[in-house]
């Protein structure tokens, strides 16, 4: 089980770095975060202190769009190329395959996140940022990213068409993300609370992003990951019944 997960994980990492997609996404995100960081820095000269959670917060938001691009290939391509048939007839558990894929994607995202530490280093050099605040934002963004990738992986298992997979995942992620806004406009306070509790933003903006690490938010993202992976394993299993 562990061996198979590790092998699938290794192969995924190899795939990310063998294809231009991974580099393009990394370049795009670093460029965007760089621009944001730069303008925030300009502001912080006069208007307000630099925000240490700026970059991780932006990255977590960006994952609503980028996670589906990172995950659309994972299972859809295996199904399309027929390699899924070999994977499913190899002596390995289905959960090992799904887990390996997910961890591969999450690891790649973690590298991306780590690359943005450069902004924190710059801040440390030129000012005295609140490192605790930054750390909490990074933990939050890391979990947030994991949850979005798990959603993306689920949709990759549903279809052999990568575009369809990405589109569906993006729609659902946008919905989970906008839930935060929907919570603000419904009349019923209770309903608004519920909507906010299930939205991705609701567990980030008012906690991790302001320097709070709350167990309920960690549990929320971990829960999303577990549930999504569980459903994905079931869907992969169902390949056998079709």
């Amino acid at each position, binding site marked *: 089980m562990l*061996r*198979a997960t590790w*092998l*699938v994980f290794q*192969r995924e990492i*190899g*795939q990310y770095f*063998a*294809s231009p997609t991974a580099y393009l996404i990394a370049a795009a995100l670093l460029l965007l975060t760089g621009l944001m960081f730069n303008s925030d820095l300009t502001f912080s000269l006069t208007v307000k202190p630099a925000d240490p959670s700026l970059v991780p917060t932006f990255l977590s938001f960006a994952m609503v769009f980028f996670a589906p691009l990172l995950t659309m290939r994972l299972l859809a391509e295996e199904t399309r*190329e*027929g*390699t*899924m*048939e*070999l*994977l*499913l*007839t*190899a*002596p*390995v*558990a289905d959960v090992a395959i799904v887990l390996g894929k997910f961890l591969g994607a999450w690891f790649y995202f973690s590298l991306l996140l780590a690359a943005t530490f450069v902004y924190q280093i710059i801040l440390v050099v030129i000012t005295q940022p609140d490192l605790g605040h930054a750390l909490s934002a990074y933990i939050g963004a890391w979990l947030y990213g994991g949850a979005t990738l798990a959603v993306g992986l689920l949709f990759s298992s549903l279809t052999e068409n990568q575009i369809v997979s990405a589109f569906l995942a993006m729609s659902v992620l946008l919905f989970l993300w906008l839930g935060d806004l929907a919570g603000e406009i419904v009349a019923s306070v209770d309903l608004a609370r519920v909507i906010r509790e299930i939205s991705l933003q609701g567990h980030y903006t008012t906690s991790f992003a302001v320097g709070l690490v709350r167990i309920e938010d960690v549990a929320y993202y971990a829960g999303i990951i577990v549930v999504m992976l569980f459903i994905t394993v079931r869907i992969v299993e169902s390949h*056998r*019944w*079709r």
Partner: protein
Amino acid sequence: MIEVHNLTKRYGAHTAVDDISFEAHPGEIVGLLGPNGAGKTTTMRMLTGFMPPTSGTARIAGFDVLTDSLAARRQVGYLPERVPVYPDMTVAGYVSFWAKLRGVRNPRARVDAVLEQVQLTDRRHTLVRNLSKGLRQRLGLAQALVHDPPVIILDEPTIGIDPQQVIEVRDSVRALGQQHTVLFSTHILSEAEQICDRVLIINRGRIIAQGEPAALRHQLQPGQHLYIQIAGASRGEALRLLERIPGVDSVRADDDGYRLRARPDVDVRGEIAERVVKAGFRLLELRPVAMTLEDIFLDIVGRGS
């Protein structure tokens, strides 16, 4: 090595595989022969643990494919009809991935050995995407062999590659039969005849005949078949003349001559020659016809429908 009992697969109302039973012994090459859509791939997919049977059982080396799936899968090397590849991996990397995933103890040595066996050693650093179709087929074979499984299942391994490569693949399948139990499917009869120790003819999900290719031919072809060409006689005259010969079961016109089936216990050839000449016609040709597996197959499949 492979034991299949009353295996059935239904998709809703459609029955893809209908109550088939057969066995394959160690070192035997068994061919699944049938037209497209006969249920060959479905049968193989059930044996490899890719899909569960609707009913019936299948065992690979004693392990049930449903209840002992992981153990059964460990005993099988499988090459699906369309060779599944990771285009961005190298040849050696691809084979090594499958070796490790199937728990091969010494993957590096096995990968080297198997690449040598399928003659891909000089391509080991080539990206899979750059391989020709025939080379991909060999790569698929390497993947199926790398964990040295006792049972090898090949789904139409000679489809879509050029004739020279077909011969190579056939040779390697035959060579595999010395150490492994091989189950392979084809819709080409001569191929089954050349390679297999035993042939299962499958049509519409059912096994309609099975046996050694030679025995199968014998069993399905009672009596002797002769081809005769006669000059100077009208078709009607010739048919009437031949039908009256004692021992002849049936006669029919075939191309420019006649196909005649006679009882196996009498030799009618002398009588035919004599009567044709006596009737004032000329005998141009008289030869025995060996029925090919193709004829048998068409005969059976035709009867089946």
